[in-house]
């Protein structure tokens, strides 16, 4: 479980998160929506201690993130908004293996995880290709695989579908769905609810650093007007 308790955060005195409270239960699929600059990325970065709340607290599995960074980072997998500068190795295989290696797993176990993660993003068998020879969408997929390979208890994804083509998006979505069904908490930020609404247990919408909606999808839809989020058009 990831829990935000009245979290506030400011960049250079400009408040970006204001008194945010939020819970992502194990196995829940939570979609975080909101306009550009509403604070989604800032919120996500609190889940594994990349940012630390100015006031309030973030708990992962009942432990404050700040108290046990390792626990937070090894149980919360994170996919960044821009995958591109975040690859640490030159080749796909080495990059996806980076996280599991840091956890000190056995080599065989690492290889198994890398294979499974690349499978989930439709990139199996391409381990030895160099990252900078990949197209934009292929890079996004490898970034997702890097987080999945850590087999985290919770996954946090910042607009993971940008740049993904249709089959890749569907494959990632179905992987996320089965992860959630197996008890992984999923928190996914996006502007575009059209594709994820069917899977979501809850939709959380932000505006100007505040959580303004936190409802199951059907009820959330009614409250989203004016929040600059794309919703499925009623036909």
């Amino acid at each position, binding site marked *: 479980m990831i829990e935000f308790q009245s979290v506030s955060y400011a960049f250079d005195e400009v408040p970006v998160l204001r008194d945010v409270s939020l819970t992502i239960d194990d196995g829940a699929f939570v979609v975080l929506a909101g306009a550009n600059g509403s604070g989604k990325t800032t919120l996500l970065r609190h889940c594994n201690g990349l940012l630390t709340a100015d006031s309030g607290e973030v708990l992962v599995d009942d432990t404050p993130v700040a108290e046990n*960074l*390792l*626990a937070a*980072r*090894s149980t919360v997998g994170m996919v960044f908004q821009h995958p591109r500068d975040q690859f640490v190795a030159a080749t796909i295989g080495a990059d996806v293996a980076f996280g599991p290696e*840091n*956890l*000190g*797993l056995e080599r065989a176990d690492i290889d198994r995880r890398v294979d499974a993660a690349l499978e989930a993003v439709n990139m199996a068998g391409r381990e030895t290709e160099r990252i900078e020879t990949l197209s934009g969408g292929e890079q996004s997929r490898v970034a997702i695989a890097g987080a999945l390979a850590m087999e985290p208890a919770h996954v946090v994804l910042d607009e993971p579908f940008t740049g993904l083509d249709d089959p890749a998006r569907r494959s990632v979505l179905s992987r996320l769905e089965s992860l959630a069904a197996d008890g992984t908490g999923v928190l996914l930020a996006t502007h575009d609810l059209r594709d994820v609404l069917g899977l979501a247990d809850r939709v959380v919408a932000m505006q100007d650093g505040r959580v303004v909606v936190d409802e199951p999808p059907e009820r959330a839809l009614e409250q989203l007007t004016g929040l600059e989020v794309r919703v499925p058009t009623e036909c």
Partner: protein
Amino acid sequence: MATERNSVDLVDGDVVRQFARAAMLAALIGASVFVTIPNPFSPAPITLQVLFVFLAGLVLGPVWGPISLLLYLTAGAVGIPVFSGFEAGIGPLFGATGGYLWSYPIAAAVIGLVVHRGTDLRDPAAVALPIVVGALVAGTIIIYGMGTAYAAWLLELAAWEAIAGFALPFIPGEILKMVAAIVIVRSGRIEPVQS
């Protein structure tokens, strides 16, 4: 599983940040050798490496500056084409310009020590100009001292021959690089990592 995770020893956030910068600066030096101009008056080429050695000392300081250059030398030694003329291997480290290469980490350390007066980083833009210039001159003397001495020993040259071939032809260029380094750190666009 739980014990395994507890034995993981995370690298501290400030260290990660400094380390990432050191590695990136090392890669940048490697990228800069696309400027390799044969010098008609010297057996060594004109490159921008020294500019980045200056910046390593000024911006990364006396610990991470030299680490950055050690990373650079290691990367070249194991075969990444980062030395002048896109060369690689341990050969260049023992070759005619090897003395220069070995001097880089030492020069960066000295520049860092003089400018930052210890391991806590200061903003180099706020350090008095004469100190910065003094540091860069000291670094330059180390680079040329080692580069020239090693070449003289390796290639069995007399002292004046080595100085004429490996130091004098570069002096005007080196002054330009010092000015460029000072312009860059005084632009205010590069903030050192404060820990």
